[in-house]
C-alpha cells in the first residue's frame, strides 16, 4: 500500500504508540495496563507500520526477529523467577525493593521484570503472525 497520508501519520503515531505501550507496561502494576496490554499496543504499532510501509522495512525497524523477541521474553520471565529459587523460596516468588528518586519513591521488583517478559512474548507472537501473513 502506498498512501502518503497513512505513511506520514504512521511516522508520528508509531513513536507515540510505542511510548504509550511502554508507559502502560510500567504503570500496569498500579493502574490499568500491564505487559499484555502494553505488548498488544506495541504489536499494533508495528502492524500499522507494516501496513503503511511494507513488511521488509518493518523487520528492519524492529531489528530483532519476532522469534528472538519470543525467546527473549520467555527467558526473561523465567529469569525473573530464579532469584527466589536461589534464596530457597518457591519459583517466581516476588522480591521487592524500594527506590527513592528525590521526593518520590517507587517499588521495583521481580514481578515487573516478569511483566517485561510477558510484554516481549506478546509483541513477538503477534508480530510473527501478522508479519508472516503479510509477507505471503
Amino acid at each position, binding site marked *: 500500500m502506498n498512501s502518503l497520508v497513512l505513511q506520514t501519520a504512521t511516522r508520528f503515531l508509531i513513536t507515540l504508540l510505542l511510548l504509550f505501550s511502554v508507559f502502560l507496561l510500567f504503570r500496569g502494576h498500579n493502574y490499568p495496563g500491564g*505487559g499484555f496490554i502494553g505488548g498488544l499496543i506495541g504489536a499494533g504499532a508495528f502492524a500499522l507500520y507494516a501496513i503503511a510501509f511494507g513488511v521488509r522495512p518493518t523487520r528492519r525497524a524492529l531489528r530483532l526477529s519476532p522469534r528472538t523477541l519470543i525467546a527473549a521474553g520467555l527467558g526473561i520471565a523465567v529469569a525473573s523467577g530464579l532469584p527466589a529459587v536461589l534464596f530457597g523460596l518457591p519459583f517466581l516468588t516476588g522480591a521487592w525493593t524500594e527506590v527513592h528518586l528525590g521526593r518520590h519513591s517507587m517499588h521495583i521488583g521481580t514481578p515487573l521484570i516478569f511483566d517485561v517478559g510477558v510484554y516481549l512474548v506478546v509483541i513477538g507472537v503477534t508480530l510473527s503472525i501478522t508479519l508472516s501473513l503479510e509477507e505471503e
Partner: protein
Amino acid sequence: MTLPAAVLSVFALAVAAPWLSRLARGAAGWVLAILPTLLVVQLALLLPRIAAGETIRQSWSWAPTLGVELSFVADGLSVTFSLLILGIGALVLIYAGGYLAGHPQLPRFYLVLVAFMGAMVGLVLADNVVTLFVFWELTSITSYLLIGFDHDKVGSRKAALQALLVTGVGGLALLAAGLLLGGVTGSLELSQILLQGDVVRSHALYVPILLMVLAAAFTKSAQFPFHFWLPNAMQAPTPVSAYLHSATMVKAGVYLLARVSPVLAGTELWTTLVATTGAVTMVLGAVLALRQTDLKLVLAYSTVMALGTLVLLLGLGIEQAVTAAVVFLIVHSLYKGALFLIVGVIDYATGTRNVTRLAGLGRAMPLTTAAAVLAGLSMAGLPPLLGFISKELIYEATFGLERGALIFTTAAVLANAMIVAVTGLVAVRPFVGRPVPTPRPPREPAPSMLIGPLLLGVLGLLFGILPALVSPWLVVPAAASVLGRPVELALTLWHGVNAALVLSAVTVTLGFAGYLAWSHLHGALARADRLLTWGPAGWYERSLDGVIALAEVQTRLLQSGKLRYYLRTIFAFAAALLLGTLVWRGGWPGVDGLVIGGEGAYEWTLAGLMVLSTISASRATSRLAAITSLGVVGYSLALLFVQYGAPDLAMTQFLVETLVVIIVALVLIKLPHFPQRDPMPRRAQAVNLAIALAVGAAMTALMLAVLAYPIPTHVSEYFASEAYPLGHGRNIVNVILVDFRALDTWGEIMVLAIAGLGVAALVKLRLSARAREIER
C-alpha cells in the same frame, strides 16, 4: 558441591555444550569431560564416609505441598552407579570427539549426551520417587533423541520410537508403583519407604506394586519379552551404544530392582518372577548373540545376556548373589563399554563391522588390539581379571542355592560358555590370522578414541589383581544398600580349587569349542531364525500397525477437512453437553435467577447494537463486512466492561478485537476472490441457525445458573486485601497476573509462544511450497 547442585550442574553443562563445542572445536570432547571427572573425584571423596556406613542425603525444596522434593541420597549403591555413569561418560565424551569429528550435528549430539548423563546421575541418586520418575523419563527421552540421531534414516527413527514406546510404558508403571508405595508407607522419600519392608510386603497392594515395578525394570533393562528394542537401538552412533545401551541406561532397570529390594524382595513371587525372567533373558541373549555377524549386534545381544544375569542374581536375593551382581555390574560396564568403543574404532578404521570380513587387524592396530584383549579376557572371565572374580561369585551364588541350584547353575554355565565364544568373535577373530582386504586400510585411530577402551581395559585388569581397590569401597557398601544390612566380604582372586573353579574350567572349555565351531553353530542358528525371532517383536509391530489403522479409520470417518463442518460439530456438541448436563443434573436456572431491571439506556443500547451487528454479520455477503460486524460486537462488549468497572478487561478486549480484525483482514486479502462457489442450501442454513440458537441458549442458561448461586468471595477478598501489602501493586488484576498467579501466566505465554511459532511456521510452509511451484 551438594548433591542437587552436582546433578543440576551436569544439565547446565548440557545447555552450554553446543557453545563449548563450537568454541573448543576438536578439543570439545576433552573440555566437556572436565566436569564429569571433577564430579567423579567429588563422589570418590565421599566413599570413606559411605564405607563407614553413613548415607548422605541432601535435598532442595521443589513442590513441598505435594511431597515432591529434589532430594538425593549418596549410599553405596547410588555412588557405585554414579561413578560408573560419570567416569564412563567422560571417556565416551572424549571418544565421541574423535568418532564424530567434523559431523555437522556434533553440538546437538553433545547437548543430548550430556543431558542424558545428568538424567542418569539424577536417576540413581534420587531419593524422591517423583524425582526418580522424572529422571527416568528424561533418560528415555534423551535415549530416543540419541537413537534417532541420524534422523534422516527410516531405521533410526523407527528404532528410536520403539525404544521410547517400550521404555515409556514402563516409566508410567514406575510412576504408578511409586505413588502406591507412597500411599502404603506415607512417604514419597525412598529412604523412608525402604525402612518399611514388612509393612509393604504384607500389604494388600504388594502384588500390584511389585508387578508395576517389574514392568518398569524389565522394559528399561530389556528383559524377555521386552528384549527386542535393545538390538534395534544399535542404530545409534557407537558412542551412544557404548554408553546408554550397554554401560548405563539399560542398567536403570537393574538399579531399580536393587533399590527396591529391601521392601519388595524376599517373597516367593519376587524370586520366581525375577529370577526366572533373568535366567530366560540370560540364555536367550547369549544364543542370539552367537547368531549375529555384525559386531555391534553381537555385543548388543551379549548385553541382553548380561542384563539377564544381573536380574537373575537380584531375583535370587541371597547375600552371595547380590554381591556377585554388584561385582558383575562393575565389571560388565568396564569391559562392555570398552568393547563397544573398540567396535566403533574398527568400524571407523576399516569401514566394516562384519565379523566374517575382518581378520589380522592386530599388526596395523596394536593398541586397539591390546585394549580388545584386556576387555575380552575380562568378558570371558579369565584370571587375573575382575571378570574372573565376578564369574566365580556368580557360580558360588547359584551353586549354593537351596532350591533350583541345578537349573540356575546349568543356565549360567551355558550362557557364560556362549559368552566365551562371543568374546572370541569380538576380541580375537578380527585381530588374528592373515589380514583380509577391508573397505578402508586399517590404521590406529586418534588418541581420543583409544584412551577410553585402554583405560577401561586396564581398570578391569587392575581391579582383578587388586580387588581390595573396589571391594571395601564399592562392592560391600553397594551390597549392603541392596540387602538393607551390613555385609562382611573380601574379594580374592584365588579361592583354591572348589566347585566354582571347576565350573569355570568347564565354561571356558565349552566356550572355546563353541568358538572353533562357530561357523556351524551360526548356520544352525540362522536356520532356526523363524523360531528365535517369533514373539514380542512381532507383537509390537502388529499392535503399532493396529493403532495406525484405527487412527486412519477414525480420521476418514471424522475429518472432512472442511472448516464449516468442524465448527458445526464442535458447537453442536458443546450445546448438547451443556444443555444435557443442565437438564440431567438439575441445574436448570429458575426464573428467579433472571433479574431484569437496574440496567439503563446505555446497557440496552449496547445490547441492541450487539444483536444488530450479529444479525448483520450472519447476513453479510462479503467476508470483510462479516468480520467488521463481528468487530462491532467485540467493541460493544468492551464498552460493557468499561461500564461495569473492568478497565483492564476492556482495554484487552479493545486491543484483541483490533488485532483480530487486522489479522483476519490480512488473511482475507490473500483468499481467492471467488463468488460463493457453493451457496449454502436452505436446509444447511436452517441446521446452522438451530445450532447457533442452541449454543446461545446453552450459554445463557449456564450464566443464569451460575448467577443463581452465591459467588464465593474469599479468594477475591484475599487478593483485594493482599495485593498491595504483598504484591506492592494497586492494580489487583495485574498483581494476580504477574505475582500471585505468575506460574499460570508463564504457562499461558508459553502456549502463546508455541501458537505464534506454529502459525508462522504454517504460513512459511505454504510460502516455500509456492516458491517451489514458481521455480518450476
